[in-house]
C-alpha cells in the first residue's frame, strides 16, 4: 500500500486477532457450525466402514461392532451426534434466510419454510427406526 502523502493521510489499520471468534457468542456459534462438518464427515466414513464390513460378511461386521464399543469411539460418536444435530438445527433455521418466497405479494412466514425440513427429518428418522427396530 502507498505511504501517506498530502492527499492520502496516514491511517492505522488494526489487526484482527487469531482468536476473534472467542470474543462473541455469535462468532463462536458460527465456528462450531463450521467445525461440525468434520463430525459429519466422520459419520459418512463410519457409514462406509459399516457397509464395507457388511459386504465382507457377518464375522467382519461383529468385529466392527466390537471395535465401536470401545469407550473412546462411543465418546467420539456421542460428540459427533451432538454436532450433527447442531449442524442440522442451525442449517434448517437458516433456510428461510436464503428463500424469499412471496405468495400473492406477501412474504411467506419463516415457519412455513423451516417446518417442512423438520417434518422430513422426523419422517426419515421414523422410517429408519422402523427398519432397524421391526425385527
Amino acid at each position, binding site marked *: 500500500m502507498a505511504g501517506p502523502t498530502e492527499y492520502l*493521510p*496516514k491511517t*492505522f*489499520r*488494526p489487526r484482527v486477532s487469531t482468536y*476473534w471468534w472467542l470474543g462473541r457468542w455469535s462468532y463462536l456459534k*458460527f465456528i462450531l457450525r463450521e467445525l461440525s462438518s468434520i463430525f459429519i464427515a466422520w459419520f459418512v466414513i463410519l457409514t462406509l466402514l459399516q457397509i464395507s464390513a457388511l459386504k465382507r460378511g457377518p464375522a467382519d461386521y461383529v468385529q466392527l461392532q466390537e471395535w465401536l464399543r470401545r469407550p473412546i469411539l462411543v465418546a467420539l460418536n456421542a460428540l459427533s451426534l451432538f454436532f450433527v444435530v447442531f449442524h442440522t438445527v442451525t442449517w434448517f433455521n437458516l433456510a428461510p*434466510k436464503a428463500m424469499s418466497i*412471496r405468495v400473492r405479494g406477501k412474504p411467506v412466514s419463516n415457519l412455513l419454510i423451516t417446518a417442512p425440513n423438520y417434518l422430513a427429518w422426523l419422517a426419515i428418522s421414523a422410517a429408519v427406526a422402523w427398519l432397524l427396530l421391526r425385527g
Partner: protein
Amino acid sequence: MADRITLKVTRYDPGRDHEPGFQTYEVPLRKDWVVLDALNYVKDKVDGSLSFRWSCRMGICGSCGMMVNGEPKLTCATFVSEYMPGPVSVEPLKHFPILRDLIVDISDFLEKLTKVKPWLIREEERRVVDGEYLQTPEQADTFRQFSMCINCLLCYAACPVYGLDPLFTGPAAIALAQRYNTDSRDQGTNERLDILSQHDGIWGCTFVGDCTRVCPKHVDPAGAIQQYKLTAAKEWIKSLLMPWGGR
C-alpha cells in the same frame, strides 16, 4: 442513579501517535443522553480536539456508527444509561483504517458500492416524454427492506470475513445490489451477477449472520447475500443445462 459516568474513548493522532490509545472523560449521566450527546459534551466542554463524525442525530444519515462497549452501534440511538455504572468504551468502527480518533476511512466501501451498480439499469432508456416506469405497491414491497440501508457500515464492523479479507465486497454493498435486482423496473441483474458471483463477491460470505443482527434498519444483509447465492447457483445450473441459451 449516579450523576456521572466515565467514557473511555479511542484517541489517535496520525501525526504524533504510533498506534491508538484510550483517554477517559467524566461526563454527566442524563437519562435522555445518547452516546453521541456525551461525545458532543466532551467536544464542547472538555476537549475540543476529539474528532468524530455525526450529522442528523436521528438514525438517518448513518454517520455516527462506532463501537460502543465492543458492539457496532449508531451512537445517536444508543443511550448512555444502558451502560450503567460504566465505564463506556467508545472506539472507531472495527475493520476500517483509523484516520483520527473515532473517524475511519470508508473509501474502500464507497469504491465497492459503486462497483455493484446500485442504480436502475435499463436495456433501453425510455424517453422522458413516454412517462415514468410504473410499479405496484406489491412490487415496491419486495425491495423496500433492502432500500432502508443508510450506509452506516455497522455490518462491515460486525463481519469477521471483511475483517480478515478486506477484498470481500461486504454486506451493505451486496444488500444494495439485491435492492436493485428485486426492483421490477431494473434490468441489470445479470450485469451485477457477473461482478458479484466472483470469489470476493457473494461467495466470500460464510454466513456468520452478525451483519443482520447489528443492522439498525433491519435490512437483513445476510438474507440478501444468501438469496443472491441461490440466484447465482440457479443461473450456473441453467448455463450448464442450456449452454446455448443466452442470458
